[in-house]
C-alpha cells in the first residue's frame, strides 16, 4: 500500500519536480560560467591592480565593506574568497535563487501533503479507503527521501555539465594590457608570464549538497507538522514561510550584530553551511560561537533531526485529529 501511495504522490509532483530540476540544472551550469568569468577574468585583474598599489586584497576588502558585508553575512559567504573557483562555486548553493527554490519546494509540497488534500477535498476519498493514516505520512516521508536528493542531484549535474563545457580556468590578464595611465602612459601591472589553470573541482559540491538536502528536509518536516494540524494549504504555506523568513532574518541579524548572535542556533540556517562541507569536508557547526561552552554539532545531522522531529509530530497529530469536511 505504501508503494501505491508513493507512486501516486510521485506522479503528482512530477511536473513541478521536472521544472525545479531543470531550473536548478540550468542555474548550476550558468553559475559555473559566472564562476569562470569572475575567477579568470575579473579577480586576477583586481588582484594585479591591488599588487600594483601594494595591497593584494584591496578590492576584495573594498567590495565586502558596507552593503557588501551585509550581503556576505546574509548569504553565509563569510569565509569565501571569490578568487578561488571552488569557493565561488560553493556560493552557488547559498545563492538566493537556490535558497528560494529549495524553500518554496519544501514548503509547497509539505503544505499540500495534508492541509492541501483537506483543502482540495481529496482527503475524504483517500481516507475512506482502508489506508492507515500513518501510512500516508510515511509515504510523504519516503517521497521526500526520493525527491529532495533528486533536486540536489540536478544541481550537481548542472555543475558537472558546466565544468565539462566551459574548459580550463586559466587567468586572463588581457584587460590589464589595454589599461592606460594618465597621459596615455602604459602601466606595467605585475602579471604572471605563463598563468597556470586554477584548480577547480565540483566533486566536493556533492558533500555540500547533502547539507542542502538536510536543509530542505528540515523545512519540509517543520511544514509537515503545520500541515498535519491545518486544513488550508494557503494558511499553512503562509505560516511556514513566515517561520522560515523569521529564521533567516534572525540568523542574518545574529551574524551582523554580535549581541543577537545568541538566537542563531535556534534557526535552521545556522546549521546550513554547505560551503564548509564542500571546501573543507567539515560538517561541524561551532555552536560555541553563539552559546559559549556549547559543543560543535554536525549541521546536516541537526537539520535531519529537525526534519525527523517534524515528521514525528505530524504523524502524532494526523493520527489523532478529526478530518473535517472540505471547505
Amino acid at each position, binding site marked *: 500500500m505504501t508503494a501505491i501511495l508513493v507512486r501516486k504522490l510521485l506522479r*503528482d509532483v512530477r511536473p513541478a519536480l521536472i521544472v525545479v530540476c531543470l531550473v536548478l540544472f540550468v542555474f548550476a551550469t550558468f553559475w559555473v560560467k559566472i564562476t569562470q568569468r569572475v575567477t579568470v577574468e575579473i579577480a586576477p585583474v583586481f588582484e594585479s591592480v591591488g599588487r600594483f598599489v601594494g595591497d593584494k586584497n584591496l578590492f576584495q576588502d573594498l567590495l565586502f565593506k558596507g552593503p557588501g558585508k551585509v550581503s556576505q553575512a546574509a548569504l553565509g559567504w563569510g569565509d569565501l574568497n571569490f578568487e578561488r573557483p571552488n569557493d565561488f562555486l560553493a556560493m552557488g548553493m547559498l545563492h538566493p535563487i537556490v535558497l528560494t527554490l529549495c524553500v518554496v519546494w519544501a514548503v509547497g509540497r509539505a503544505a499540500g501533503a495534508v492541509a492541501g488534500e483537506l483543502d482540495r*477535498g481529496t482527503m*475524504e*476519498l*483517500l481516507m*475512506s*479507503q*482502508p*489506508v492507515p493514516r500513518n501510512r500516508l505520512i510515511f509515504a510523504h516521508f519516503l517521497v521526500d527521501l526520493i525527491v529532495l536528493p533528486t533536486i540536489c542531484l540536478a544541481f550537481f549535474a548542472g555543475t558537472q555539465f558546466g565544468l565539462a563545457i566551459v574548459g580550463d580556468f586559466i587567468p586572463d590578464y588581457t584587460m590589464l594590457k589595454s589599461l592606460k595611465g594618465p597621459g596615455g602612459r602604459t602601466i606595467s601591472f605585475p602579471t604572471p608570464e605563463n598563468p597556470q589553470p586554477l584548480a577547480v573541482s565540483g566533486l566536493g559540491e556533492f558533500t555540500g549538497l547533502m547539507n542542502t538536502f538536510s536543509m530542505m528536509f528540515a523545512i519540509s518536516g517543520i511544514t509537515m507538522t503545520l500541515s498535519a494540524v491545518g486544513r488550508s494549504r494557503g494558511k499553512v504555506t503562509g505560516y511556514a514561510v513566515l517561520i522560515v523568513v523569521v529564521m533567516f532574518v534572525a540568523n542574518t541579524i545574529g551574524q551582523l550584530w554580535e549581541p543577537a548572535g545568541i538566537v542563531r542556533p535556534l534557526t535552521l540556517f545556522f546549521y546550513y553551511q554547505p560551503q564548509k562541507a564542500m571546501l573543507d569536508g567539515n560538517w561541524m557547526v561551532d555552536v560555541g560561537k553563539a552559546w559559549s561552552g556549547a559543543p560543535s554539532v554536525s549541521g546536516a545531522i541537526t537539520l535531519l533531526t529537525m526534519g525527523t522531529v517534524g515528521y514525528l509530530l505530524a504523524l502524532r497529530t494526523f493520527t489523532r485529529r478529526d478530518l473535517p469536511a472540505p471547505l
Partner: protein
Amino acid sequence: MADPLLVAENLTKDYGSFRALAGLNVNIAAGEVVGLLGPNGSGKSTALRSLLGFLKPTLGRATIAGFDCWAEGVEARRRVAYLPGELRLYETMTGRRLVTFLGQLRGDVPGLEVDALAKKLDIDIDRPLTHMSSGMKRKVVLLAVLLPKVPLIILDEPTNTLDPTMRDELLEQLKAAKARGQAVLFSSHVLQEVEAVCDRVLILRRGELVHIQEMSELREGRAVSARITGTAPTSGPGGEALPTDAITDGRLSLTYRGALPALLEWLARQPLADLKIEPQGLTPIYRRFHG
C-alpha cells in the same frame, strides 16, 4: 433482525460547545437498506463521517462488523465503500486510473467488471476527470464504490447531479447490492428515492435521531382524505373509534392499514363530497419533524 453489521451506541460528536450529533443509537443488518433523512445541519454527514472514522466521537462508539470505527478504523473501512457528498477528485487522473488506484488501496486490481459496469453507467472511464462533468465524475466514483463487494455501502446524497435515468440506474444498483446481501446506508433530501429503496428510514433533527420508520409499515398504509357533507362517522373501517383529530372542519384524514375492500365498503356508507386515497408516503412523517 440478523446480527447487526453496523452498531452505533450513543454516538455523539461535539464541536466545541455545539453538539452536532447527540447520542445516535442504531443497528443496521446485512442486506438492509437504510435512509438517513434530515435537512442541512441535522447531523447526517457528521453521523456518516463518524462511521467512517473521520471524526473521533466525543461520546459513545460505532462498530462495523465488530471493528470500532475510530480505534480500528482501517479494519472497519475495509468493509465499507463510501461515496462522498461533495466530490473532489484527483483531476489529473483518468476515470480508469482513479478506479484502479482506489481498488489497489483495497488490495484489489479491478478486472473486466470495470468496463461492464462503466457501460451500464454510461461513462467513458478513459477520459481525464478534469474533462468530465460533475455528474460523470459522480458516476466514476459510484463505479469505484459498487465494484468492491464490501458488506456496507455508505452514500452521502448519491443522486446529486445525476440525471433521472442514472438516478433510476443507481437505485437499481442499490437493490442489486441488497440482493447480494450488502447493507446500504445513504443520506438524501429526496424522499421519493428513499421510499423506493429503503427498508428503514432514520430522521435526524438538530443532531438527534427523532424517528425510525420501518418502510414495510408505511407501504401497508393508505392515506385517506375526504370531505364529509353529512353526519360524521364515529368509528373507522375496522369498527374502531376514530381519533379525535381525524375529522376537522368537515375534512376526514386518516391512515388505514388493512384490507382494501373493507375500507371501500366503509367509505361507501359515508356522506362524502370528494375522496382521495393514496399510498402513505414519507412526506407527512418527514413534515411532522421538519415542517
